[in-house]
């Protein structure tokens, strides 16, 4: 399973927001997209699942273009965990997770035992099974995020896109979510792409990072190679030091001024 993005240009009206974006992600790999606000991170994510249509460029899954696929077909391949998930209505957690089966069902179909089983497995993996009968707007932010991830998993996707999955979460929930994402990538063999503004978390949990600046790829590679003081100075205009933390075994970015 391989996702290839080739030479994507995207415009909002006449403003070029993404230019010549090209990269590849394989299964069991987590790609982190980082960059300042306005660099095009979320836009790129929305282009990958074809919610936004790039002006030029192609997106291929296993070397087959997804441009001609309808929304249902795309939803069977790509699961998305969007940034904002405020749901005001008293659906139960199980209702919400089961909605992930929509791309696999016809309108008049009732959910089959197989559909229920898939939803239950997804909730087990995300540790949300015990919340099944709770109402979606009565659970905590971290729990809600895990429920939405469970919903995405119920689509049985090969590719998982997460937009700022740790935004507004406490540190323990942030780590919990990212550990879950890592487990999903490795054990469930997913292609995972996550957008984050948190450089430290991204460098710790992602196999590969892509630093965007003004719609272009500034640097792509391992976290150690991408998040260098020079790159960060160029893109964020901030002086930092990058240290290797012996006990935690990863690189930490520390602002200097």
């Amino acid at each position, binding site marked *: 399973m391989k996702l290839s993005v080739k030479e994507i240009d995207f415009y909002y009206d006449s403003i070029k927001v993404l230019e010549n974006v090209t990269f590849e992600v394989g299964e069991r790999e987590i790609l982190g997209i980082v960059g300042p606000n306005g660099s095009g991170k979320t836009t790129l994510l929305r282009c990958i699942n074809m919610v936004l249509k790039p002006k030029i460029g192609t997106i291929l899954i296993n070397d087959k273009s997804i441009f001609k696929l309808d929304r249902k077909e*795309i939803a069977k391949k790509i699961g998305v965990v969007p940034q904002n998930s405020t*749901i005001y209505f008293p659906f139960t957690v199980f209702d919400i997770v089961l909605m992930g089966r929509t791309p696999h069902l016809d309108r008049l179909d009732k959910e089959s*035992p197989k559909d229920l089983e898939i939803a239950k497995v997804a909730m087990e993996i995300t540790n949300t099974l015990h919340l*099944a009968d709770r109402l979606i707007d009565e659970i905590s932010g971290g729990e809600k995020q895990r429920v939405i991830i469970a919903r995405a998993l119920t689509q049985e996707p090969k590719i998982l896109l997460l937009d700022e999955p740790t935004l507004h979460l406490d540190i323990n929930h942030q780590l919990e979510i990212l550990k879950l994402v890592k487990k999903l990538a490795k054990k469930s063999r997913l292609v995972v792409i996550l957008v984050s503004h948190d450089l430290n978390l991204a460098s710790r949990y992602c196999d590969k990072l892509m630093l965007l600046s003004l719609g272009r790829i500034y640097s792509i590679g391992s976290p150690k190679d991408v998040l260098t003081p020079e790159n960060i100075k160029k893109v964020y205009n901030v002086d930092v030091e990058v240290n290797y933390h012996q006990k935690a075994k990863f690189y930490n970015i520390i602002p200097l001024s």
Partner: protein
Amino acid sequence: MRKNNVDALHFRKHLKWSLTIIFLVSGFILTLILTFSIGPVNIPMSTVFKILFHFPKSWPDSYESIIMDVRLPRIILGALVGSGLAVAGCAMQALFRNPMASPYILGISSGAAFGASLAIVLGISLGISVFVVPFMAFTFAIITVFLVYNIAKIKGKVPMETLLLAGIAVGAFFTAQVSLIKYIAGEELRSIVFWLMGGLWASSWDKVAVAFPLILLGTSVIMFFSRDLNLMLMGEEHALDLGINVEIVKKIILIFSSLVVAAAVSVSGIIGFIGLIIPHTMRIIVGPDHRILLPSSCLVGAIFLIWTDTLARSIIQPIELPVGIITASFGAPFFLYLLRKRKRISGW
């Protein structure tokens, strides 16, 4: 919660849904049975039964005429209009994700009112047939929606906020024209005011023939999209991510809701309250899932309008009150009671 508990949960939910529908359908049948015998002329239920099922005749001619020509079309129309407005109102609330949405949100009632007023004023002076008023109301209702939709459309997409504002503006425009017509109108003013107040007193089999196919088709199509409406509640982005072609679904729901509302308004004038409050009431009772919410609203809308119309035509005999007065007077306090009673604070 263990895995088999979740299965039990799911099974119980669907069981509750089936029981709810059975209960409401029984209520509907009971409503039909009871309301047939109520009116200025009290016809006992046994006689009603005999008349409807063509038993050997044992009653005065006038009874037959009352049941077959007056009450039957009126009750059927009540069911159609009540269910149509409730379902369309529910669909609009989901589409706009706005608890204040009613079936008239796109200015459709103002357009219909304009068409009807025009027909009344021109018709009476030119002596045109009585079918012109419903026809003009329907036509202008459809024109209004078409206008509002195309004003709001940008590059093939229709943002809901723009649609809402366009509907308000176009509605206001037509309302002003109706006021103008009322101002200029002489003796026709009374007819216009009566039409605007809404009611089922002018029910006829011709009207049933027009309303029945449109409302049946429209409500069926809307209910077919129940799952889509559930997902639209989460937000358009979520719906797109889960495989819904949002712009197409929006278009279909808007078209068929408009047909239903245009049909309802053309045969019964502008009856308020039902399309706004019945869906909210049912949402408090059965929850937000449209797979149960839409059919429940449909049945309760029908039952509610039939009863309120029965009350409207028999509470102060032999005068007939406009049914809109009854729907709001009795419906609003009950809804407020439910509002206070419900345990949830968030959600609608």
